[in-house]
């Protein structure tokens, strides 16, 4: 099938000879997940020509489960973006309306699934990068609890927030892919031993308490989106859940805490791309500092450069206390808020995105407005808890995502609830 959505950066069908739960199933892999002998670029010019000599842990697991690696998917450069327009190569298009963005940063994975090119894909979620494109393209995407899926081989953008996660056309496939990639990996020191198995998947939502944080329906949330999500929450009640309004006051700090921390980590992570080992050949007649600068200027796109500058600034002497340290305090507050409401509630529910997929070019010129659209997804990454986006109708003719958030390692609750909801509509 031709890739009319720019979903893939490279298409290489590598089938596994192993038989397992994913035998015969084609899985697309986001291009920031290392694949042995297959170019892995993070949709950045600086990594053009880089061919990893090793597989990410999640890719090893895919192969061991019998999956066919269908190719590497398009994304915002290094995961930095909400629309996949920051790809150094081309924006991914939304299969539901090709004049609109697929969302980001795992836009290629979402487009590949929504466009019917593959049944499942791996994405990665640093601040919403799985859930946003899932919501915009009308598919299912799960951001696992921090530590549940090994990050070994995931090219780091913001280490303390991100997870590799499954994306699929339906909840059952999402759960299936998750059952393959979850589990302990000794090569990731933040990995925990929490495998996932599918046995309880049909347990439903009856008797579960679902909290609805009022902050998730605040200013900036499109009212048609809010209506679709409210209707979905009503459905959860019909299915036997108890609905309760809750509040997460510290969410006002979430965007700031997120952007400070992720840019700090990113600025450090991306320093290694200096032209010595990666990227375009540096000019050999320049002093080495200048050669580095020229390579990095050529190799990184504007959004990546912006975030490197922001992070470098926040970490520098005299600013560190005001920005990085403060962001960590805010992180603690947000975490505490979530853990507090999640002692009474089994799940939280709200919209995934405050809007539907914008038109191509609509947000790209205004980074601040683009950052704003992450407001409902980043809190989960800060808290480390899992969250899933499930399609719940449409607004303005485009898909809307219902976001369910759970306790640490409570993915089973999320998947059970999502499946019950999906089956009910």
């Amino acid at each position, binding site marked *: 099938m031709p890739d009319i959505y720019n979903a893939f950066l490279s298409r290489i069908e590598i089938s596994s000879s192993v038989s397992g739960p994913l035998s015969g199933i084609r899985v697309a892999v986001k291009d920031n997940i290392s694949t042995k002998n297959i170019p892995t670029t993070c949709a950045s010019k600086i990594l053009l020509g880089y061919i990893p000599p090793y597989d990410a842990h999640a890719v090893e697991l895919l192969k061991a489960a019998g999956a066919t690696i269908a190719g590497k998917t398009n994304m915002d450069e290094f995961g930095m973006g909400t629309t996949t327009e920051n790809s150094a190569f081309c924006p991914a298009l939304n299969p539901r309306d090709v004049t609109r963005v697929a969302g980001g940063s795992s836009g290629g994975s979402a487009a590949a699934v929504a466009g019917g090119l593959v049944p499942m894909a791996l994405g990665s979620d640093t601040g919403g990068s799985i859930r946003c494109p899932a919501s915009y393209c009308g598919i299912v995407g799960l951001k696992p609890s921090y530590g549940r899926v090994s990050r070994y081989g995931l090219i*780091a953008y913001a280490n303390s927030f991100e997870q590799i996660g499954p994306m699929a056309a339906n909840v059952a496939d999402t759960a299936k892919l998750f059952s393959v990639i979850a589990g302990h990996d000794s090569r990731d020191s933040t990995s925990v031993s929490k495998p996932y198995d599918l046995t309880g998947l049909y347990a439903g939502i009856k008797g579960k308490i679902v909290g609805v944080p009022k902050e998730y329906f605040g200013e900036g949330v499109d009212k048609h989106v809010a209506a679709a999500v409210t209707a979905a929450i009503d459905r959860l009640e019909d299915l036997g859940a108890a609905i309760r309004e809750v509040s997460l006051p510290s969410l006002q700090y979430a965007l700031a805490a997120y952007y400070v921390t992720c840019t700090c980590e990113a*600025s450090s992570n991306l320093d*290694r791309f200096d032209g010595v080992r990666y990227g375009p050949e540096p000019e050999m007649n320049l002093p080495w500092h200048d050669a580095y600068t020229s390579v990095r200027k050529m190799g990184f796109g504007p959004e990546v450069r912006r975030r490197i500058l922001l992070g470098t600034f926040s*970490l520098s002497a005299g600013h560190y206390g005001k920005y*990085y340290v403060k962001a960590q305090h805010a992180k603690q507050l947000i975490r505490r808020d979530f853990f507090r409401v999640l002692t009474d509630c089994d799940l939280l529910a709200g919209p995934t995105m405050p809007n539907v997929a914008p038109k191509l070019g609509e947000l790209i010129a205004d980074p601040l407005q683009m950052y704003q659209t992450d407001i409902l997804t980043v809190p989960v990454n800060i808290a480390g808890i899992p969250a899933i986006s499930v399609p719940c109708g449409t607004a303005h003719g485009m898909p809307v995502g219902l976001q369910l958030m759970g306790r640490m390692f409570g993915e089973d609750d999320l998947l059970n609830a999502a499946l019950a909801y999906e089956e009910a509509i």
Partner: protein
Amino acid sequence: MADEETNVIIGLEVHCQLDTKSKLFCGCSANFRADAPNTHVCPVCLGLPGALPVLNKNAIEFALRVAKALNCTFTKEGEFCRKNYFYPDLVKAYQITMGDSPLATGGYIEIEDDAGNPKIVSLTRIHVEEDPGRLVHMGSKERGHYTLVDYNRSGIPLIEMVTEPELSSPKEARRLLSKLRATLEYLDVFDPEKDGSIRVDANISFRGHERVEIKNISSYKGVEKALTFEITRQKNLIRRGGTIARETRHFQERKGTTSSARSKETATDYRYFPEPDLPVIRVADWVETIALPELPDARRDRFMQQYSIAVGHARTITGDLRLAEFYEGIVDVGATVAASWVADILIGELNYRGMALETVTTRAQEFKNLISLVRSKTITDKAGVEVLRVWLDNLYAGDRTETPAQIVARLGLSREDGSSFRVIVEQTLASNHQAIADHKAGKKGALNFIVGQVLKETKGKSEPREIHAMVAELIGE
């Protein structure tokens, strides 16, 4: 001058490679020195995108041993952090090190000051970090310059030990390093024989003047030399009315001088922040389980008690673990004579030839036999030294067949009975009437001249004390 020198304040930052089997954050073998460049590497120590560090518990265990031996206070939660800077030998463009929460703080090392009195030097902190790779500069003016990068060293565990600025002379600094080296050796965490296994940054200032840091000195001798050079340089500058700039300087090992580093390098903002890929380490319970071996000071005291040897001998011998073990292995030949032979003679002869201690420790029995020959008066002390020299020269040349006893036989060095020299003594006396007259007139040393003549004639086979007695007897005293 002496007054100025008491006003010198020196602090050291000592980095030692921990002698672990594998690197700090990956499974690559740390034993790379004999192998081709870039053969001990993997995605982690090459800093490949997506690779993650996994802490080598052994390295931490080693560092905890050191911290415990140096009486440090352990941090509740040790935290790794990133030190960000660009350099081609640094694969990730950051070094994983420890910042505000090192493994341990405080602690102290006891050394002798320049007057020989005990002196306590406080430690600021101890932490663990990774070594960068190594740059090898190649080419020439004619053929162009280029640089090769070898990442075999990338990720080797380093322990960094920082002292308070409490040292007052280059010699003290050197003694502190020796003590530190001995302690690490006793703890079995460090191999000082490995090339480049220690690197020192030294800061030095005169009271009331700015501090200068000398970076990356890679030998014990170098530290003393660099500091001595800096003292002279700074003293001259102050005397001429100049001001000492707060700066970083590099030490040129070959020239024995320091030179200012470009200010660009010193202006780096390292942007430290906690390493998100590694959890904090809690060591309190761990430390409890660590048992320490006998350390240099304890062994020195034990040697003095158990073997009744002099403090100087005990200190020298226990200052090097292998030397101490070698000594204990041969001590039954006679504790005092063995101590003297090891501390006063052997070390000097080895150093003179640039030979490693191992050449002798692996042949301890032969060395012991040599001492036995002296003890049993088969050969004189002087002949013993001669035999040692020949034996070492043989070993140096790769000849391992000839034993000390065979050397004695070949060179005819067996001590002969005093009576066989009577004729030589008589002849010497007969041709030195003046000396005898001088002696009788009370001139000191006149008799020694005669004894010396006899010793020369007998080629070291005679014992000076016996000759002296014979001379005295023959001139009727």
